[in-house]
């Protein structure tokens, strides 16, 4: 009992910078006739009313937060500006056609970004096609179906996959995935799906498909662990309500869980896509690094990030360097455009149907 009575006093002492501590409060309040009666009733309210309105603190807090938010704009604009300034030589030489030209010849100084843009987008989208269903499956199993003793090990392993450095993935791909692709998966795909025209030409084990597969493995843990967290956040009452209406387990997952978490899932997929677009090391090791646009997924390709990593350190000519920086600009723009399209898709899907059970 005595301890509860002590509380206001203790609280009054703890905030050090308060200008008027409690002992002075009655003296101060006596000058103010209106609040004098209140003060005797509630020392806490009196203390709060006497220590200033807090407007200064609130405003400065808001200003600091605004500054933090603006720093994002500043960083983006700064990066964009630097990329444009340093690639101006190539911008002037090739203009906007740079992004639609196929040439890449450092000897004669003829540059274009199209094969790299194609390689980047093709590998990333293919990786998403492979990783998203798998990641959703992992997340649904972990949140809805997994027996308790299995849950911790699977979650732990998923997060472990996310922590492996990309060069390790690359090495694994070179020594395991490439031979597998050359001797087993490639011939199988050619036999079963060869008629589509996507699996033609010589298959050396390195190429767009191998790069997409390693990317899919790399983005799988990000998408699945984020999706799992999002699904865990769906209130149990939703599940119970759906089940109470007589839904089967699959219907409960579809209506109660997936429908409620779809915006979050799209966000997780976007993060995975971001990693896939910018991934450099592992892709460089298995994509074949040949700037060509080919329909066949067995053919070698090249990505924007890979060509920068490969050629930047030994690029001597000014135009060559400038073209490589413009490749960076292209990667920047591709990321923005792909993200914008994804946002648009999310908006189109969700604008008329807010997350609810119906």
């Amino acid at each position: 009992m005595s301890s509860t009575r002590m509380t206001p006093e203790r609280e009054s002492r703890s905030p050090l910078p308060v200008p008027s501590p409690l002992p002075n409060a009655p003296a101060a309040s006596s000058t103010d006739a209106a609040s004098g009666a209140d003060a005797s009733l509630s020392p806490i309210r009196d203390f709060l009313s006497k220590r200033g309105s807090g407007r200064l603190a609130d405003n400065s807090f808001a200003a600091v937060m605004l500054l933090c938010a603006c720093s994002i704009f500043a960083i983006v604009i700064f990066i964009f500006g630097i990329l444009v300034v340093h690639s101006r030589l190539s911008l002037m030489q090739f203009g906007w056609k740079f992004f639609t030209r196929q040439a890449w010849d450092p000897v004669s100084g003829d540059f274009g970004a199209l094969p790299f843009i194609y390689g980047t987008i093709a590998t990333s989208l293919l990786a998403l096609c492979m990783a998203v269903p798998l990641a959703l499956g992992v997340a649904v199993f972990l949140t809805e179906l997994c027996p308790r003793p299995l849950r911790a090990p699977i979650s732990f392993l998923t997060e472990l996959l996310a922590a492996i450095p990309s060069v390790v993935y690359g090495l694994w791909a070179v020594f395991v995935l490439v031979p597998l692709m050359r001797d087993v998966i490639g011939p199988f795909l050619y036999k079963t799906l060869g008629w589509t025209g996507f699996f033609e030409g010589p298959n050396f084990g390195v190429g767009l498909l191998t790069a997409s597969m390693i990317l899919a493995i790399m983005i799988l843990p990000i998408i699945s662990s984020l999706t799992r967290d999002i699904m865990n956040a769906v209130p149990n009452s939703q599940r119970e309500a759906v089940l109470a209406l007589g839904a089967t387990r699959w219907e409960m997952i579809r209506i109660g869980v997936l429908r409620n978490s779809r915006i979050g899932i799209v966000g997780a997929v976007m993060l995975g896509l971001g990693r896939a677009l910018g991934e450099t090391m592992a892709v460089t090791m298995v994509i074949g690094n040949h700037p060509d646009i080919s329909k066949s997924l067995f053919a070698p390709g090249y990505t924007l990030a890979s060509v920068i990593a490969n050629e930047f350190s030994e690029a001597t000519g000014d135009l060559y360097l400038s073209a490589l920086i413009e490749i960076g600009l292209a990667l920047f723009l591709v990321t923005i455009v792909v993200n914008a399209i994804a946002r648009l898709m999310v908006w189109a899907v969700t604008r008329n149907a807010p997350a609810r059970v119906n």
Partner: protein
Amino acid sequence: MHLSLGGYVNLKVIAAGILAMVSVGANAQNINGAGATFPYPIYSKWFSEYSQLHSNVKINYQSIGSGGGIRQVSEGTVDFGATDGPMTDQQLKDAKVKVMHIPTVLGAVVPVYNIPGVNKDINFSSDVIADIYLGKITKWNDGRIAKDNPGVNLPDKAILPVYRSDGSGTTYIFTDFLSKVSPDWSSRVGHSTSVKWPTGIGQKGNEGVAGMVRQSPYSFGYVELIYAETNKMSFGAVRNASGKFLKASTSGVTAAAAAAAKTMPADYRVSITNAPGADSYPISSFTWLLIPTHSTDPNKAKALAEFLGWMLDHGENEAAALTYAPLPKQVQDMVRKSIANVK
């Protein structure tokens, strides 16, 4: 009282420390360089040995690539640069600092391949190598390969050409050689640290190319001699300018440099690929240090010139141990005269 005394003592110690550092800084000459990755192992050995012998000189070297070395020394941000391919006339003209090339050691590039069932060393004519990378020779049992390798049972399999995807001095030397031996290559591709490869797949670094060749049957690639030797890789013989098939060795590389020494220009910017002489290995090259001829700091220039002298007298003898080919005697004598110009 205790506290202030402690603070006083601390201050004294710190001041003494600063004084000590300043006095060391005044005596020791810090020389910074940057550039080629290929000679990095021998350079770092030389620089650390030289610092041990001369405690007043400390040479720092960053292997950031030849392109970076040329850029930085041209801008004057480092005291010296290093490159595997000589600077072009345009680059020399544009440089803010007047730069001199000093050859240090030699390197070579060897063809590597993976043909299951074939254990003999394969001979390659120079034009055959060019045509493999041009996509004109696509099968291992092509008549032109078979002609150079009588008695070898070459399979009817597609050749997978592998090249370096990263810009490199190795690619510079290799494409420089191909440009000399194949007019078609010289007009369609040319030579540089990275080129537009007509066919094949690219892998990063010597280890990338070697790894790809090792695990892909019927592939063909090129790596540095040092890399092949330290990793005990088998490699093919290349036909040199006088028609002899030669496997790369440090003596063959030095012989190529000696053959080129007769026509060596004063600025040492010379390509020695496809050099004349029966014992000259054809895919060889110098690697150069880029030394500013007029340094802003005469002390640094003096220290650098002293190091170069030491390199010729002692360093060259250590090159072979690291499988670099040393400079031939004639070139060493030429360089010794040139060092006198470093001021």
